[in-house]
């Protein structure tokens, strides 16, 4: 019977929108039949002729049907109530009053059902709040229905006023326990098949729970009539047990079973006077089962979510490439992930490990962003460790989370890059030297070739028996000329490095600065340094040798970049600044490096003075002579803005006609 009702309701619910289709008709017929059957079953010692019973499961059925099918179910419900009345008592004398009361019951529960639907109560019971809302709505709704029902009979004079309170109470409590027990079960019955495997798996547990209920009922009703109600509280034990194990569904089913048992017993065993006690007992059982079951379901849900997020976090930690350590306030390692075990060795997972042993010098309580220090492995070897740490948020603020990364590889890569740069610079210097030697050899070979030929010719002329002294003289003179020419080549070379032999052109300083800055883009990026270029757009053209000026600027920027690579990554700043004033163009190259030591500073522009391990110490010396040869000056001081060194080139826009020699 019950099973077919479930099937019918679930079929009907799929076609809610079509008013009188086949599915609904089937569901309605089943519903009415069930309603009448339940009415008949629960008809235990009704109060007078008012159709008031101690337990009204049909009210729960009606409410569930109304919730599932909406307004069109009201008429069916009214019919069911009327037919229920006929089935129990036959044709009553006061037919119109009974009809009015039945219609009211249908309308009253229709309203309660609409309220439940609109507020989405009872459709899902996951939390204690859901259960409380359902219980509250049921208490209020059934009270209204009961009060109005009794009022109708009062008004028709069929009920004396003195019995009104008793009648309302009994009707109300009877409907309430029916509604609490059946309505949520029926509304949520759609997925009942899903629970079958559970039933199978825990067969023996369920059977023993069922046995506990039956045993309890048997104990109660084997007692003398007077003592029976005293031991009703025993029924709470199986209900609580079942609620804790299976949630509100199991609790409601067990309550339903108990109620059926009690009603069967009430037919014979329980005195009418105690029926009201029985009613309260059943309502209390229903409420207890519902609320406790909902609390269990809620807790299970929370636990499931926590377990899931913990599993996610565990997976995350296991996958993390960096070592992650949870540390308690005393510096003990509470948790270490797989990467930590790999990095530090097996000892760190034991739970007894002190973080201070593995990361000596790390200050956990100090608010710091990231630190790098030497870590120690379980085997005692050390490695450069990059550490990030965070205090755990409240309410778990008892400790810290520390991540550690092995910086060995990164350090080595940086080292290799630096070495490669140095090797490249060395190779460049050799290439430049080779080029220079080649050019020099070519220039010198010309006069020397002529010189050797003249001298050999002179030799031959001198050896001739008939001397041609004039010719010999001329040839020797030419030879001397060639020797002078050779020395001129050498002088020209020296002059180039002293800035003596320079070309002069109109140089666009701003464009030149941009060209040099662009040439550094790649090296700046690799060194993680920034260069800000600020050139006065009104800089005039300057009479100078553009190539020499470019060499000097290039040299100064290269020095600055070398210098900032000694400081931490974030603060690597270079600045190229150009301005003019009173016929003098000023170019400044400043850096945020450590600056020039006093010792180096005094001899900075002398040749072969350097602070670089692989430097030749010629750059600044040559740079200064090139600038001075043009009547300018190159000087160095401490940068006020960036804190490192600042080199200043001052160039007159029109150079003096007589350039000083160096």
């Amino acid at each position, binding site marked *: 019977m019950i099973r077919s009702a479930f099937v019918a309701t679930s079929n009907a619910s799929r076609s809610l929108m079509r008013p009188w289709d086949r599915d609904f008709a089937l569901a309605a017929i089943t519903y009415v039949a069930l309603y009448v059957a339940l009415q008949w079953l629960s008809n235990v010692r009704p109060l007078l002729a008012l159709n008031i019973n101690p337990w009204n499961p049909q009210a729960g059925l009606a409410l569930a049907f109304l919730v599932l099918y909406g307004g069109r179910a009201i008429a069916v419900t009214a019919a069911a109530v009327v037919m229920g009345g006929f089935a129990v008592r036959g044709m009553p004398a006061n037919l119109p009053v009974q009809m009015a009361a039945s219609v009211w019951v249908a309308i009253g529960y229709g309203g309660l059902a609409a309220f439940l639907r609109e507020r989405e109560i009872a459709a899902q019971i996951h939390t204690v709040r859901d259960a409380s809302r359902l219980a509250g709505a049921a208490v209020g709704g059934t009270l209204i229905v009961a009060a109005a029902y009794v009022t109708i009979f009062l008004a028709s004079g069929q009920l004396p006023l003195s019995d009104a309170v008793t009648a309302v109470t009994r009707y109300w409590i009877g409907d309430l326990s029916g509604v609490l027990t059946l309505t949520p079960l029926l509304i949520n019955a759609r997925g009942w098949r899903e629970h079958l495997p559970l039933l199978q798996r825990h067969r023996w547990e369920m059977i023993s729970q069922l046995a506990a209920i039956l045993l309890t009922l048997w104990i109660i009703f084997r007692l003398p009539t007077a003592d029976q109600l005293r031991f009703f509280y025993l029924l709470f034990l199986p209900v609580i047990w079942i609620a804790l194990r299976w949630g509100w569904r199991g609790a409601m089913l067990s309550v339903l079973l108990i109620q059926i048992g009690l009603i069967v017993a009430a037919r014979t065993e329980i005195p009418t006077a105690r029926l009201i006690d029985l009613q309260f007992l059943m309502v209390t059982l229903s409420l207890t089962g519902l609320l406790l079951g909902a609390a269990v379901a809620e807790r299970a849900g929370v636990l499931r979510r926590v377990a899931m997020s913990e599993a996610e976090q565990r997976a995350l930690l296991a996958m993390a490439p960096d070592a992650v350590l949870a540390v308690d306030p005393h510096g003990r390692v509470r948790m270490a992930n797989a990467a930590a075990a790999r990095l530090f060795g097996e000892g760190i997972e034991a739970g007894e490990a002190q973080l201070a042993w593995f990361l000596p010098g790390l200050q956990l309580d100090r608010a710091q962003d990231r630190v790098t220090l030497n870590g120690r492995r379980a085997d005692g070897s050390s490695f450069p460790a990059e550490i990030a740490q965070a205090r755990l948020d409240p309410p778990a603020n008892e400790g810290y989370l520390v991540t550690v990364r092995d910086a060995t590889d990164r350090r080595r890569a940086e080292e290799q890059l630096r070495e490669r740069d140095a090797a490249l610079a060395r190779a460049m210097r050799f290439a430049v030297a080779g080029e220079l030697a080649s050019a020099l050899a*070519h220039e010198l*070979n*010309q006069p020397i070739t002529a010189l050797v030929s*003249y001298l050999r010719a002179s030799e*031959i002329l001198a050896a001739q028996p008939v001397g041609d002294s004039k010719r010999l003289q001329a040839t020797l003179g030419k030879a001397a000329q060639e020797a002078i*020419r050779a020395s001129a080549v050498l002088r020209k070379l020296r002059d180039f490095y002293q800035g003596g032999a320079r070309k002069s052109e109109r140089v666009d300083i701003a464009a030149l600065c941009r060209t040099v800055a662009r040439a550094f883009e790649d090296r700046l990026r690799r060194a993680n340094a920034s260069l800000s270029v600020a050139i006065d757009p009104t800089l005039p053209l300057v009479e100078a040798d553009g190539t020499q000026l470019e060499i000097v600027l290039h040299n100064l920027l290269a020095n600055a970049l070398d210098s900032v690579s000694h400081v931490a990554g974030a603060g690597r700043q270079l600045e190229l600044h150009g301005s003019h004033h009173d016929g003098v163009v000023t170019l400044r190259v400043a850096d945020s490096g450590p600056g020039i030591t006093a010792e180096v500073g005094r001899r900075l522009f002398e040749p072969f003075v350097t602070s670089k391990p692989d430097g030749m110490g010629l750059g600044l010396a040559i740079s200064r002579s090139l600038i001075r040869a043009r009547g300018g000056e190159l000087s160095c001081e401490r940068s006020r803005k960036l804190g490192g060194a600042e080199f200043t080139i001052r160039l007159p826009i029109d150079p003096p006609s007589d350039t000083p020699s160096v």
Partner: protein
Amino acid sequence: MNISTSPDATVFVVDDDASIRDALSLLISLKGLRASVYSSAEDFLAVYEPTWRGCLLTDLKMPGMSGLDLQALLRQRGVTLPVVVLTAHGDVSTTRAALKNGAVDFLEKPVDDEVLVDVLRNAIRIDEERHRATAESAQAAARLARLTSREREVLELLAQGLQHREIAERLAISPRTVEVYKARMMEKLQCRTLADVVRIGTNLRSDMAAKHPA
């Protein structure tokens, strides 16, 4: 001084450096060779005559046409004048290219007189040999042209190493007639021995093979 050097052999010096031109020509002439100087490859090409004997001594790096370009252009025009390259330090790859293109030698600046004169004399001798070979083959061709077709056939068969009797069978004439043709042919070619005949015949064959590749 060296008698083997023909009197009209000249060293043609091409160098953009006036001092080097002057010094080299002085030294070369004092060593008994004739020297003629040009300040650029273009100047030399403008006046060059195919009848000129001797060798070319050229600098590699010059403004305008380089020594390498000059060498390539001469080769392209079929000029057989031997080329000696005068190179400055650091021109190793250029020098290698010059040698590959047929330069007979190279000299590195500064160069001493003994080496210079040795190399130049050697180059001039190569020029003379080339010239003589060309003249001889021209003479031989002229003599061959005077042969009748029968005499020419006998020459070719003799060069192949055939006996008189075999030649007679091939040409369907008597061995006696073969001997008459042979005697006339040897007289026209001014050959005294059979070996001379075979040499000329072999040259002829290889020339023909070169002119009409099969």
